[in-house]
């Protein structure tokens, strides 16, 4: 089980994440939602070990991951929000780099890397530098790199970014299957329709604070609202979206 206890991250004095606590059990898919700047990616980066929290702790199966970050990272797969990959490496070279850094045996790594590229339809571009890849192709490489070592925890930060419809649907089914295999999955996204379908529970974050933490079904019942979009609007988007749209059109005409 993955547990966050009172995680806070401050930049100067401003909290980007403010006392966030939640748990995710094996087999659960946690939807991590919030508007831009709510602190979603900051939390994910803290979990991935890319940022140090100002206070609070992350526990996995009861142990504090700060005591042995390498042990935790060995069991972690991460798809970042921005597809920053070394542009001079090819897709295959990138997967080999990640696999070797993760200590995978050479023969198995080559086989897996080739297979991942094949199933994602990148076989023909495996020797092309990543700098020449489209956003979707990079995303496929990043997803492959995150799954290469069969992780127990999967952090997906906007994983659908740049993916075509078919690959998005494949990813949706893949997340479900991985949950069936008792993986811990945190799925951060702005696409509420997809989140609603694949997540067993959701956390809604606003200005760094948790404003909702329950299953979609329970939230619907509690708030008497029919969909996650409306729950989200009620909790977070306090602006009249139609009025803002009218304003934008007005500014365009000036």
């Amino acid at each position, binding site marked *: 089980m993955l547990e966050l206890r009172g995680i806070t991250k401050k930049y100067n004095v401003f909290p980007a994440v403010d006392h966030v606590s939640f748990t995710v059990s094996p087999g659960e898919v946690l939807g991590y939602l919030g508007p831009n700047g709510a602190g979603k990616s900051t939390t994910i980066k803290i979990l991935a070990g890319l940022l140090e929290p100002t206070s609070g702790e992350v526990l996995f199966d009861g142990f504090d991951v700060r005591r042995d970050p390498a042990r935790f990272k060995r069991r972690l797969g991460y798809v970042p929000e921005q597809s*920053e990959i070394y542009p*001079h490496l090819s897709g295959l070279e990138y997967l*080999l780099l990640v696999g070797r*850094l993760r*200590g995978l045996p050479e023969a198995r790594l080559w086989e897996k890397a080739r297979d991942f590229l094949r199933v994602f339809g990148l076989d023909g571009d495996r020797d092309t530098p990543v700098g020449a890849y489209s956003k979707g192709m990079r995303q496929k490489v990043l997803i492959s790199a995150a799954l290469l070592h069969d992780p127990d925890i999967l952090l997906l930060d906007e994983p659908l970014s740049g993916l075509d419809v078919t690959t998005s649907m494949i990813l949706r089914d893949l997340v479900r299957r991985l949950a069936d295999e008792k993986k811990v999955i945190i799925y951060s996204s702005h696409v509420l329709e997809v989140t609603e379908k694949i997540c067993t529970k959701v956390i809604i974050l606003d200005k760094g604070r948790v404003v909702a933490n329950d299953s979609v079904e329970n939230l619907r019942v509690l708030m008497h609202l029919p969909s996650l979009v409306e729950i989200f609007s009620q909790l977070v988007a306090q602006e009249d979206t139609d009025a803002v749209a009218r304003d934008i059109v007005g500014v365009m005409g000036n």
Partner: protein
Amino acid sequence: MSLNGRLGFEALMRRTRGRPRQVLVLTRHFFNRLFQNEIIPFEDQMKEKLFTVLAVLAAVGWVLTNTLFSQYMFVEDFGQSWMEKFAFLAVFMTILAFAVLLEWDVLFPDARDHLNLRPLPVKPSTLFTAKFLSFLAFVGLFSAAANALSVFGVAFFLPKWTGDSLTALLRYMGAHILATTAALLFVFLFFLFLQAALLAVLGGRAFRAVALTLRLGLAVACVALILVALVDPVTLSKGLEFLKARRGTRPSSLLLFPPMWFASLYEVLIGRSEALYAAGARVGLGSILVLGAADFLAMSFGFRKHIRKSLEVRKSRRPLSRLGTRASGVFDRAVLPLPVEKAVFHFAAKTLRASAGHKVRLAGYLAFGLGLLLLSTGTRILEARDPSTAHLNVLSAPIVLGFFLILGLRSGMNIPFGPEANWVFRLTEGSDRNPYFIAVRKAVVFLVILPFAALLWPVHAWLWGGGPAALHTAYVLAWMLLAGQAAFWRFSRIPYACLVVPGKAKLQARWLPYVIGFFVAVSAIGTLERSLFRHPGRFPVFFLAAAAVLAGLEFVQRRYIGPKLALVYVEEPEPIMVTLGG
């Protein structure tokens, strides 16, 4: 601006569709991009660096003017000062050539420029006008720095022999500034033409390969020439003697050297009327006009091709042949047993192969070593027929080169490639860091030291025969391995993956003891080798001792240092004030 003035300006903008403003904005943008790179990403530091460079240029101008022209305090200038003017112009033309080679990648708008600017309503002619104007501003700035102090030096030493009037003084100063600026403009236009011509003639892959090779070769030559000119008065005076002799025997042959064109322009501008100068000035000015027109045409015609080359994706690299794959597999199994070692080693190798910037940096260090070598040994390398009697500098020449190569590699490894992408190393970091550090040291040995030693043997075999060359190569190899250990002692970064904050205050504060230490060490290494060649039976003792020291150092690194070192992903900035003891 008055209302009428503003209305007039707006009408002009409408008529020209805002083109002058676009040119202005783009000129500024391209000018700024000349000074921006991955190494110095922060604007303030970039400005600070730029001012330092300009100040150094001004100081070089001052030193050079004093070295070359101070004799005219006491010796009358009967017209013989054209040689010193030639030397002054040649040095600054070479320095600018080196600067342009560093800026090679931004001479033409690159893919990022095209991606950002092409969707905007900006005409190609506007783009190139702005690019051209930014170059003129760059040359102007460079010329201002070169002239800032040197013009006063010249004004102090030379005009008094042609009359003490203010007119003579101003004429000299004007001639100095104009001749220098024209010479620098010529250099810039020449390199622009070179790139435009290569772009027009070669395909994308060939262009990249040829341009990089040419750039490296020219950078090495430039640094070596600059070092010789600034540090070695003997060679400089030999060069001046050569010019004097040529003037006496075959004066027209001097016009084969571009600095002579602008030295001639200098002489014409101060009122000397010899036919040689008139001809030289004509060639100089003509070359600027011809190159300017050629650049314009090449840039106009090559524009579409260039856009295509900039925007087209780099397609597949050729995968390794079956034999190559097998050899690579054998190498990996034998040398890099752990997966992390493989990852770090291959990442370093691929980055060094792919990154032109890192290669140019390495070439810069190599050029510095070559320059020192030219200064210290010259043609003595070819004259030495026996290592036991060879000059010390000849024996230590490869050590000097090798040392700068290792230093260049270390310096380059500190500079990140794709700084945003280093999260992958942070995410996958294991608890045992030793394999990372071991892989770095193996990369130093297999990517630089062994290839260098492999090149060394045939050269020395040609000079001294196979046996002595093998001993010499093994001796150099031993010292390079030791230097590699020393240079990467407690090195705690993954090569090309650490975010670095510029500012090498420590190195700036300690450069003098480092340089003195280096020369003492090199001299001692040469002396030891000569004595070993006189008593060859002692070579095995040396090799055994070197092997023992190397093994000891590697043991200490693996056993005591590696396990305690943390991998550094972001280098902390150094304090502003660092003392020798700090």
